[in-house]
């Protein structure tokens, strides 16, 4: 009997394979890597790289980190939910379940890959901001930015897997993630900087969901007016809370087989034939 592959080598190969799948899927790669970048470039063109009066920072200085958060959330929350749900529809998860690969390692590979892609998209965004739009990075707040990012992507990865666990299909996952992320991005300080004019109830809604608690401290870490090291413990704690609850619920409700396609497509076809 040869040796069983180690958990570490399995995690490594699973991560590589998830990365490969992602980069060979042009739609996912476009929406995660280029779409946030495009919005950033368009905003910089439309508003000009002037100082936003009520914020005291330039357009790029605000939008580079804000769109980096959007990219990171797309890479974890949206991509994990949609890809996992479609893989279940296709029976790929069922196939995996029939192999000796421990389920936790499979999921671990997905999460690590999603976080790597999120990191890449954030690095691309910030590099372009720094090189072409004079975005400044501050040593004093860099550590808090990194920690906010890590807790943010981990929590949104857990949320993505929770969506994958509870939806019935890949189409549903696409609908749910877009219907939650896009509206929230408008009033959580991602697409539009928060203003005084925003009604209190809308602010309360934003405060309830985790996106604002990711965007606000991350954007603040790139604001020259931020004093100190930029730690926002309340937001970090609140995101962690969302992440842990979502992760626990995802584990509890995760299904490896599509409830609609039990037995698969051929079965449905055959039933249809029997009726006819």
């Amino acid at each position, binding site marked *: 009997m040869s*040796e*069983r592959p180690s958990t570490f080598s399995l995690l490594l190969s699973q991560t590589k394979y998830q990365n490969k799948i992602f980069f060979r*899927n042009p739609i996912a790669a476009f929406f995660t890597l280029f779409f946030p970048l495009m919005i950033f470039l368009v905003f910089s063109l439309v508003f000009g790289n002037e100082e936003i009066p009520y914020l005291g920072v330039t357009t790029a200085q605000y939008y580079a980190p804000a769109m980096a958060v959007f990219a990171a959330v797309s890479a974890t929350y949206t991509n994990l939910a949609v890809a996992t749900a479609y893989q279940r529809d296709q029976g*790929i998860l069922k*196939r995996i379940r029939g*192999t000796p690969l421990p389920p936790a390692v499979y999921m671990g590979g997905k999460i690590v890959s999603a976080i790597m892609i999120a990191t890449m998209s954030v690095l691309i965004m910030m590099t372009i901001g720094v090189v072409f739009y004079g975005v400044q990075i501050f040593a004093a707040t860099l550590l808090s930015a990194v920690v906010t990012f890590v807790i943010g992507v981990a929590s949104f990865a857990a949320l993505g897997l929770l969506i994958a666990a509870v939806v019935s299909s890949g189409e549903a996952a696409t609908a749910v993630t877009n219907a939650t992320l896009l509206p929230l991005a408008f009033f959580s300080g991602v697409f539009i900087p928060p203003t005084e004019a925003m009604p209190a109830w809308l602010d309360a809604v934003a405060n309830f969901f985790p996106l604002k608690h990711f965007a606000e401290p991350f954007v603040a870490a790139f604001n020259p007016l931020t004093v100190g090291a930029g730690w926002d413990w309340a937001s970090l704690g609140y995101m962690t809370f969302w992440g842990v609850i979502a992760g626990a619920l995802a584990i509890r409700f995760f299904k490896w*087989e599509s409830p609609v396609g039990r*037995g698969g497509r051929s*079965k449905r076809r055959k039933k249809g034939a*029997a009726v006819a």
Partner: protein
Amino acid sequence: MCWNSGMSVIEVQDLVKHYGEIEAVAGVDLSIDAGEVFALLGPNGAGKTTIVEILEGHRTKTSGSVSVLGCDPAKAGRAYRERIGIVLQATAVEEQLTVEEAIDLYGSLYPKQRKTGELIELVGLEEKTHSRIKALSGGQRRRLEFALGIVGDPEVIFLDEPTTGFDPSARRQAWSIVENLTALGKTVLLTTHYMDEAQRLADRVAVIVKGKIVAEGTPETLGGRESATALITFEANGRSIEELPLSAGVATLSENGRVTVRSMDPTRDLHQITGWAIERGVELSGLTVTRPSLEDIYLELTGGTGGV
């Protein structure tokens, strides 16, 4: 978990599975030995896939006992899955991978990994080694799934309707792959609703209808086939069938003027019929004596519901 056992490789006793009100499997016993190819034959919805998926560990049973390689598939986990290979119905492989990448990737999950090149050759996908799975035809995908099912060099292989939807040449290719496996001494449990497939591949066949096994045996003896009613037929040529002397048979006259005698004792009946004909100097034109085919037996057992 697994325990040592001197029993068969697959041992199933009084297996029952309910989906809500529906009883998909209604008390099934199976005993399959090492190196045997066993076919579960039955119409769609008979419970074949449910049984196989319980044995694979994909589903839990309602009651009864199940042991494969001395393991309870529902609880055995990783150690069990290292020793089995599964070719499911209607599953997919990530379309973005190439054939070679997929076999490498799935192979890397097992302690014993068969060489990717050899497997590609075994399933006849040499020309597609570097093609994305997206670009494969249905038959080629199915052959890739065969390769993925055996990439961990399993002791037991489950094939759930391995050739459904194949054209005749793809079926023959799939059969020769299965024959390659059995030559290596693997135990194979396959489900099918094709008679010729069961006859070609299986050492033993169980016919399953509405969750119950209604007959079990070798393809030659299934359903008492070797001793079953024989059919003696000949042209009536205007004669009445009442004249026929029969000891154990029943004669019927079809519209096209052919006499069919269903006989439990064909040797004696044939002797009487031919004796009667010779006495009268009558020629029995078109005389045949046949045993029922496996398909006849199957249709009889399944009440003619066997869909192809």
